[in-house]
C-alpha cells in the first residue's frame, strides 16, 4: 500500500524515503509484523497508527536497523539498512518509544555526543540552534536526569534535528508532554514538514495525528489495514446519522428493517446509524413517514479518525444490526 503525498512525486527525484515490501518479523510463533507493504513519499507528515502490539514499533525498529527482519525488503531513500546501515540511514533520524538520553550528562553534552557519533561536523552553533528551536537553551547545561518528561521529549527531537534529517521517524513524541507542549510540538512538526522534512509519526493520540498528518498508515496484528490520505479515509467510511423523532422506539424498529442501515444504536431520544448510500436516506424518510413517525432532526456526521481507527482495528460487529441495539 502506498501512503501518497498530496503532491505527486517529480520524476528523477531521489527514491522514496521509505519503501517496504512483504516485511515480516516473527518472535517465535507470533508474527509481530506480517507481510507489511508500505511506501512513504517525500514531504509532509505521515501518521503511523495501531493498537498496542500491532507492530508499529517493530516496523520502525526495522526501518532504523535496530532489529533484523525475517523476510521482505526495506528501502530507505533507496538503500537497504541491512546492507549498509550507515549509508542507508544518512539523513534519517528518529527515536523509538521515547527518546532515551544519558541522564547523567547535560542536555548539551548529549547533543554533542550524538553529533560526534553522526560525524557530521555539527558544531556548537547547530546545537544552539536546535536547542533554541525546542526551547531548551536555558536548561541546556542541566543534567537530563533533572528534566521533566516533556523536556526529554523535546531534547529527543533536538537530538534528531542535530542530524539535519530528511526523514524523521518519531515514536510517541507527545508522551508526557503537557497540552501547551503538545500545541508547540504540533507547530514544530508542521514547521519541519514545511521545510521539506518527511515525518513518519507513530502516535496513540489520534486527535493529534488528525491535526498534523495529511496521510496515515494503520497497522493491526502486524498488517497494514489502511494506508492513504486522511481525506480518502474519511471518504471511504459511510457517514453516521443522528436522528431525533417523535417516537424513538418506533424509529429503531423501523430502521432495523432497512437493509441499508447498519450499526444501529439508540441513546435516550436519539438514534444513530450508518447509511450505506445516499439512496438510503430517501428510503429511511419514506419508511418513517409510512410508520407515522415525525422527524425532528436528521444530522449527518463525518466519523472522527478515532471512530475510523476503531472500525479498522477492532473486530467487526455482528452482521445482524439488531444485535447491537441496546
Amino acid at each position, binding site marked *: 500500500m502506498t501512503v501518497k503525498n498530496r503532491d505527486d512525486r517529480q520524476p528523477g527525484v531521489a527514491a522514496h524515503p521509505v519503501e517496504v515490501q512483504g516485511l515480516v518479523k516473527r518472535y517465535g510463533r507470533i508474527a509481530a509484523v506480517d507481510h507489511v507493504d508500505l511506501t512513504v513519499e517525500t514531504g509532509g507528515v505521515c501518521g503511523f497508527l495501531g493498537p498496542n502490539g500491532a507492530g508499529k514499533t517493530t516496523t520502525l525498529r526495522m526501518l532504523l*536497523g535496530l532489529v533484523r527482519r525475517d523476510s521482505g525488503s526495506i528501502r530507505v531513500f533507496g538503500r537497504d539498512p541491512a546492507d549498509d546501515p550507515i549509508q542507508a540511514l544518512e539523513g534519517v533520524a528518529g527515536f523509538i518509544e521515547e527518546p532515551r538520553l544519558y541522564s547523567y550528562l547535560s542536555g548539551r553534552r548529549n547533543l554533542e555526543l550524538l553529533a560526534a557519533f553522526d560525524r557530521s561536523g555539527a558544531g556548537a552553533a547547530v546545537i544552539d540552534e536546535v536547542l533554541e528551536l525546542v526551547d531548551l537553551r536555558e536548561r541546556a547545561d542541566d543534567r537530563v536526569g533533572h528534566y521533566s518528561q516533556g523536556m526529554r521529549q523535546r531534547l529527543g527531537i533536538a537530538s534528531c534535528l542535530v542530524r539535519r534529517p530528511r526523514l524523521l521517524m518519531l515514536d510517541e513524541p507527545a508522551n508526557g508532554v503537557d497540552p501547551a507542549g503538545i500545541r508547540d510540538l504540533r507547530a514544530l512538526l508542521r514547521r519541519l514538514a514545511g521545510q521539506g522534512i518527511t515525518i513518519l509519526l507513530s502516535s496513540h493520540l489520534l486527535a493529534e495525528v488528525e491535526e498534523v498528518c495529511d496521510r496515515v498508515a494503520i497497522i493491526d496484528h502486524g498488517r497494514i489495514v489502511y494506508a492513504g490520505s486522511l481525506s480518502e479515509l474519511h471518504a471511504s467510511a459511510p457517514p453516521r446519522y443522528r436522528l431525533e423523532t417523535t417516537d424513538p422506539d418506533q424509529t429503531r424498529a423501523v430502521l432495523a428493517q432497512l437493509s441499508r442501515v447498519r450499526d444501529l444504536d439508540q441513546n435516550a431520544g436519539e438514534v444513530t446509524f450508518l447509511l450505506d448510500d445516499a439512496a438510503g436516506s430517501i428510503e429511511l424518510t419514506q419508511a418513517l413517514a409510512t410508520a407515522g413517525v415525525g422527524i425532528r432532526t436528521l444530522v449527518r456526521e463525518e466519523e472522527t479518525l478515532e471512530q475510523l481507527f476503531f472500525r479498522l482495528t477492532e473486530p467487526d460487529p455482528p452482521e445482524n444490526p439488531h444485535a447491537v441495539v441496546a
Partner: protein
Amino acid sequence: MTTTTAAAESSTRRRGGVADTVASVMVAYRWELRKLAAQKRTWLGIAVAALTPVFFLLSIQFSKVTPGDGPYGDALGPNLRHTGLAIDPVVLVEITMIGPAILAALIAGDIVAGEDMAGTLKTILVRGLRRGQILAGKTLALFTYVLAVVLAFIIVGIPAGIIAWGFNPVTNLNGDRISALHTLGLTIASLALYTAPFLAVASFGLFLSVVTRHSVAAVVGTLFYTVALQGLSGVPAIAWIHPYLIVNQFTAWYGFFHTPTQWYLITRCLWVSALFAIPPLIAAWIIFQRRDVDS
C-alpha cells in the same frame, strides 16, 4: 552521473577505509571515556584501588600482627615495615583475584548492558557509527579504566608505603637482597603484568554485558566466573590445567621477584591472558553486530 549518485559515491569514499574506521573508533572511545568519567561507579573503582594499599598499610602499622602471621606470610611479606616497596605486592596477594574481578565487573558488566537497559544503546546505534566501532570504543574505554585502576594503585600505594616505611631494599623470593630502585622497577613491571589477567577478566565481563543485556547479571556473572575458575584451580584431579587458568596468572608477577627472573611465568601469563581475553571479545563483537536491539 546524477547529483544523487555523486553524493553517494562521495559518501562512500568518506565512510570506509582504515583511517575512517580508526577515526570513528576514536570518536566512540573519547565519548565512552567522558561517559565513564561522568559516572560515580568509575571513580568509586579508582578510589577503591587507590585506597586499598593505604588501608592495608594502616591496618598493618597499627595492628598487633607479628612477623610470620597474616600478610607477613605472603610473597615479600617479610619485607613489610622494613620497606614501603613491599606494600603493593603484598596487597596484590591479599586481594587475590576477587579484588580485580570486582573492580573489572563493576564497569565491564555495565558498559553495554547498562545502556541496553537504559535504552541509550538504541539512541547511539541509529547515528553515524557502526556497531563494531561503538563496541571497539567501549572496549578501549574499559581497558583504559583498568589501566587507571592499576595506575591509581601504583600512584597512591608506593608513595604511601615509602612515607610509612622508607625506600629500602627488598629481600626477594629467593632470599636475595635487591636494591630499592631495582625493586621499584620490578614492582611497576609486576603491576603492568598484573594488568594482563585483569584485562582478560574485564573482557569476559564485557562479553557477559553484551550477552545478558542486564547489568546485574553481567556483574554477578563475571564474579561467578572468577570464583568458579578459582574453584577449578583447587581441584587436584585437573592439576595439569591449573597453570593455564586465568586466576593463576594474577600471581605470575612472582617471576620478577625470583633470581634469576622466571620468564616462563611472565610469558605464560601474557599468552594465557590473551587466550582468555580474545575469544570473549570476538564473541561479543559477533553477537553485538547481529543482535536485535528491542529493549
